[in-house]
């Protein structure tokens, strides 16, 4: 769709919305309890860019003429339209796009977005109310209430519509989610409709009790995040506006505006927090899954490698024995070569067996990630800690994560580092499980020492027995009944493959085991230098 077409459509929508929401105005002016146009405008200017603001001025001006017949005269309305267009263009120019989008998925941006909307709406309200005041259309006695009404109306419109309009086109996942949970959505829609009808319909027209609206709002926000919350706020708003079309002229409106505003902000914040948590959880799960896959692969690789080594030894002996037998064999008759030939065949078969093992080992060696950095060791610690934190809490382990404010990047691969850390922290958790509930302690710490980053995993468990020390990092060596004894062997191999090291000592702080990882600090390899020598 061309931008001009969009702009034309925008102008029509603007005027149309102004006409629909032109309820309960102050003195036939454009001061109405709810201004969805403001939200559409912010979305429009963020999307196409602030230089399309003249269309906003045009739309605002047209609305004044068509909907209200320009009660304050042409000049003040032209001035007010330009002011509003300028205000929202400035808002769009100030990088609101990222903010409005992120407001849907994280609490921090949601709060900032609310503050920005409040400020921009205030500036716009001052412009509009000021111009009609100067024109003499609005008496000074009504200045403050007019300002408040316009202001809240615009905030409401922006908060409710701008994030929705900006985010909806790119959220096919939201539609899929809706498809999966449509029965819940239907029930929620019914509850909202019922609540709106009860509160704003004709059934009980005197007492307005708004609080019940918060129940479905919270339900929806928790279930669907910001998008659902904003949609339900929109539905409630529409119900409110429709019911207000018929109410008497001088109904108190600030309370309804405030209700609407509170509902929207509640939905936005709650939804953003919910979405943020859900996303963090799914990211953690994805990370967990990746770690598990990488770990399985590493286990298979270690198995293949150990198997190759373990079997290669007897095969080596076998081949050498056979070759020795061939030398020792003195045929009785020169014609009888059968034993010699058979020994030769046996040797050949033994070598073939060794070949099979080689291929198995090659398969697992060649396919592992070969990256070495840069990686953020502190982020790896934090990620693993976060991942295991719920389990540690359940098991009554007092865990502590100590990270310095700054750590240089290390040479290594993030997944591999996390795999090693996950392994060590899980081991530590198992190690302290035998302690009394108060004595289960665990410490994960990273620090910089000269040119290496040291990460230690310490626990208050029994530690490693003196006699078990020599075999500690050997494969198939375990004290766990359900373990394969590959974790530490793999961890050390992974560390060494990245140029690091994994060592054990007794923990000075907690008295149990202390595993220490050392990473070289990442340095940019002068890769062209090596080629230079060859040339």
């Amino acid at each position, binding site marked *: 769709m061309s931008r001009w077409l969009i702009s034309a459509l925008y102008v029509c929508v603007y005027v149309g919305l102004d006409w629909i929401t032109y309820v309960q105005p102050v003195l036939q002016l454009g001061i109405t309890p709810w201004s969805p146009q403001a939200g559409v405008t912010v979305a429009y200017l963020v999307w196409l860019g602030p230089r399309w603001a003249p269309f906003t001025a045009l739309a605002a001006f047209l609305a004044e003429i068509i909907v209200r017949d320009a009660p304050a005269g042409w000049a003040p309305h032209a001035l007010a339209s330009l002011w509003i267009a300028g205000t929202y263009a400035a808002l769009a120019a100030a990088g609101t796009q990222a903010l409005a989008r992120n407001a849907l998925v994280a609490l921090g941006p949601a709060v900032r977005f609310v503050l920005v909307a409040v400020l921009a709406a205030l500036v716009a309200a001052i412009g509009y109310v000021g111009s009609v005041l100067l024109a003499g259309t609005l008496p000074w006695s009504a200045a403050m209430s007019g300002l408040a009404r316009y202001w809240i109306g615009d905030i409401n419109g922006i908060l409710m519509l701008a994030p929705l309009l900006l985010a909806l086109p790119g959220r096919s996942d939201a539609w899929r989610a809706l498809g999966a949970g449509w029965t819940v959505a239907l029930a929620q829609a019914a509850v909202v409709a019922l609540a709106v009808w009860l509160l704003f319909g004709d059934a009980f027209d005197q007492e307005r009790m708004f609080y019940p609206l918060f129940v479905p709002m919270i339900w929806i926000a928790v279930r669907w995040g910001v998008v659902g919350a904003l949609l339900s706020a929109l539905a409630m708003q529409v119900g409110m506006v429709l019911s207000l079309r018929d109410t008497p002229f001088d109904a108190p409106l600030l309370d309804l505006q405030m209700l609407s505003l509170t509902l929207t902000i509640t939905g936005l914040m709650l939804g953003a927090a919910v979405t943020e948590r859900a996303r963090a959880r799914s990211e953690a799960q994805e990370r967990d899954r990746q770690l598990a896959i990488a770990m399985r692969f590493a286990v298979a690789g270690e198995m293949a490698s150990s198997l190759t080594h373990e079997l290669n030894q007897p*095969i*080596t002996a076998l081949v050498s024995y056979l*070759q020795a037998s061939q*030398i020792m064999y003195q045929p009785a008759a020169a014609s009888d070569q059968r034993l010699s030939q058979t020994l030769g065949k046996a040797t050949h078969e033994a070598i073939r067996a060794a070949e099979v093992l*080689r291929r198995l080992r*090659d398969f697992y060696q060649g396919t592992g990630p070969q990256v070495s950095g840069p990686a953020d060791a502190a982020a790896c610690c934090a990620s693993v800690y976060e991942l295991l934190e719920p389990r540690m809490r359940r098991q009554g382990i007092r865990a502590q994560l100590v990270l310095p404010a700054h750590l240089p990047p290390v040479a290594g691969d993030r997944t591999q580092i996390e795999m090693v850390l996950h392994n060590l922290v899980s081991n530590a958790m198992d190690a302290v499980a035998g302690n009394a509930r108060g004595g289960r302690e665990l410490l994960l710490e990273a620090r910089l020492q000269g040119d290496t980053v040291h990460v230690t995993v310490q626990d208050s468990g029994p530690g490693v027995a003196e006699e078990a020390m020599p075999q500690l990092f050997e494969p198939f060596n375990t004290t766990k009944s359900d373990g394969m004894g590959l974790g530490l062997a793999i961890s050390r191999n992974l560390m060494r493959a990245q140029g690091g090291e994994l060592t054990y000592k007794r923990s000075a702080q907690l008295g149990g085991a202390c595993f220490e990882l050392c990473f070289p600090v990442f340095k940019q390899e002068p890769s062209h230098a090596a080629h230079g020598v060859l040339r």
Partner: protein
Amino acid sequence: MQPTVYFVDDDAAVRDAISLLLSLKGFLSQVFASAETFLETYRPEWRGVLLTDLRMPGMSGLDLQRELIQRGVTLPVVLLTAHGDVGTTREAMKSGAFDFIEKPVDDAVLVDVLRSAINHDAEAHRVEIVKQAHRERIDRLTPRERDVARLFAQGKQNRHIAAELGISPRTVEVYKSRMMEKLDCRNLAEVLRVIQETLPPAS
């Protein structure tokens, strides 16, 4: 001391099989179950070749090689590697291993490599013996004679040597003939060779 194959491997069957093969191929061999036992038993007069497994519990073949370099042991090192120990093997070769052989071992390759390693060691040992003899003879020189020898080795004429040491050219001649006698040399050219091979340049 007969050249011997010193064989280190943690696996008893491999030790037995390879040493059997070695004896059949006419090598003297001595086996060790670990790098540590080898280091404990090692005598400086041992000649031949060290054949060691790369991957062992405790000290690895690479560790052993490093330790030997540290101790100034010149015995050539041949590594037995498993396929896939590429990185470690490369490292070992870079720090001066004589060669490496993949397991399972092909007897022809094994014999070839060990022969050339033993020859290499014998040659290095022979050179070392000559050097040692030269060193011993140089030690017989008096400090003054050594000064003359050093200047002579730098290619200086008698009168320059005399001027530098504050003696007469005639005395230099005397020193030279004494040097020839003490160093067991028939002529001055031989003296020059012995000095250049053995005497460190003047500080």
